[in-house]
């Protein structure tokens, strides 16, 4: 999986590309952990480029959310393709994460 990073209004946006599964889950967790121990981190994870996600991928998102919320911050999700969105709905994680159409909307929501 590829992860690009851009800042929008001082919000860090991680753009994921590829499959978010057992292989890449660790990569995402490490990336989020590497973003530093700043207070109240604001993070957007953009999934427009994610064409497959499984429960290991969902686990990585939850673990990332836990890491960030311990520091008083939050993670918003953006750009879900409809297949990935169906898995969020199936596992009811659409109630745990705030989901936005694009990264800009997600970043502005903070």
């Amino acid at each position, binding site marked *: 999986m590829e992860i*690009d990073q*851009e*800042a*929008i*209004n001082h919000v860090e*946006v991680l*753009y994921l590309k590829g499959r978010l599964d057992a292989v890449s889950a660790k990569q995402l967790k490490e990336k989020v952990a590497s973003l530093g121990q700043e207070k109240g981190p604001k993070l957007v994870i953009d999934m*427009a480029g994610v064409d497959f996600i499984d429960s290991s991928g969902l686990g990585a998102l939850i673990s990332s959310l836990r890491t960030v919320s311990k520091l008083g911050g939050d993670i918003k999700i953006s*750009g879900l393709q409809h297949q990935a969105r169906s898995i969020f709905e199936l596992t009811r994680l659409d109630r745990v994460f705030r989901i936005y159409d694009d*990264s800009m909307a997600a970043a502005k929501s903070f």
Partner: protein
Amino acid sequence: MPEKICIVDDNMINRRLLTGILRNEAYELVEARDGQEAIDVISKELPDLVLLDVMMPKKDGFQVCEELQRNDRTARIPVIFISARTRVEDKIKGLNAGGADYVIKPFDAGEVLARVKTQLNIARLTKELLKANEELTRRQRRMDEDLAVAARIQQSLLPQLSPDMENTAIAWRFMPCESIGGDIFNVLRLDETHWAAYMLDVSGHGLPSALVTVSVSQMLHPATGILLKKTRTSCPGYAVRRPAEVLDLLDQEYPMERFDKYFTVTYLIMNVKEGIIQYSNAAHPPPILLRRDGTLELLEEGGCVIGLGGVLPFQEGSKKIGQGDKLLIYTDGILEYEDKQGQFYGQNRLHDTLLQLRGRSIKGIVDGVIEAVMDFGDHHPPRDDVTLLGIGFNGEFN
């Protein structure tokens, strides 16, 4: 070439039965009568498939199969066990020994044939997959080498590329068709309000074109004073030179007769406080403004190629940009990248690709476009330099 099958059975009647089943299918058949002969025949003939009896003198089928597995040349040959042993343990033992399938005697002709075909199919697909993978690795390596070369040239030609424009993300791909290219671009800070970006494409390829690109890129360096002109009348004592003026100057400096080369160029000034782009386009493919809401606007104003000696004045255009808009500047190497039938990738496909990639990071969009372009032409090496620069405006404007 017909696929070759080796039939191994100590019983002549069984061999004859199997031969009978397979004879009408245009396979080449070889036989062996015991375990040792099987090893010899298979190592020599390298068949595509082995039908292997289990109970045989000298070496039984399991031993034969294990021995085949240990030899690199025969390890990939699929083995179907044919045996009167019907216990599940035997089946497992056979599959553990490396067998691909198991048929129980007395066998049914249709079943044998179906299983033979399945195994041959799988073997063929595996072979194709391996070949495709090799090809993929080879291509990837070649592309990596190209990119490594391109990156080195890029580094030497573009020392000023400044990716630290506040609230702005920049990404680019540059693929010269020869080891050195005739395309060049840069993003430059003029003052705290203004940034400039340009891309140019010198006619032809190779060293002569590259020399002109280097010369122009040096001329467009902020230190030469081309991009900023001195003023006496107003504070701060200089003014940003308008895009059309810059193109006029280039047109005077690079007459076609002088270098036997002409070039297309897009030059634009970005006011990063107010979010306004001013540009002029000397016959360069029009940069694309990809709005956050998915509309596409082209930056078309300008004039003809640089080098004709001012036959026509350069027109200017301007665009108000908003947060989340993205600007893509590229050379015609993208539009004219051909597929096998000689069709161009073209403006329409580029627009469709951009719409599909909308919402990605600027790097995601730039890489995605290059990927789509290369996929379109089956990744054959480009005949012209392929250059794409993306600028993502993430900040808010006044």
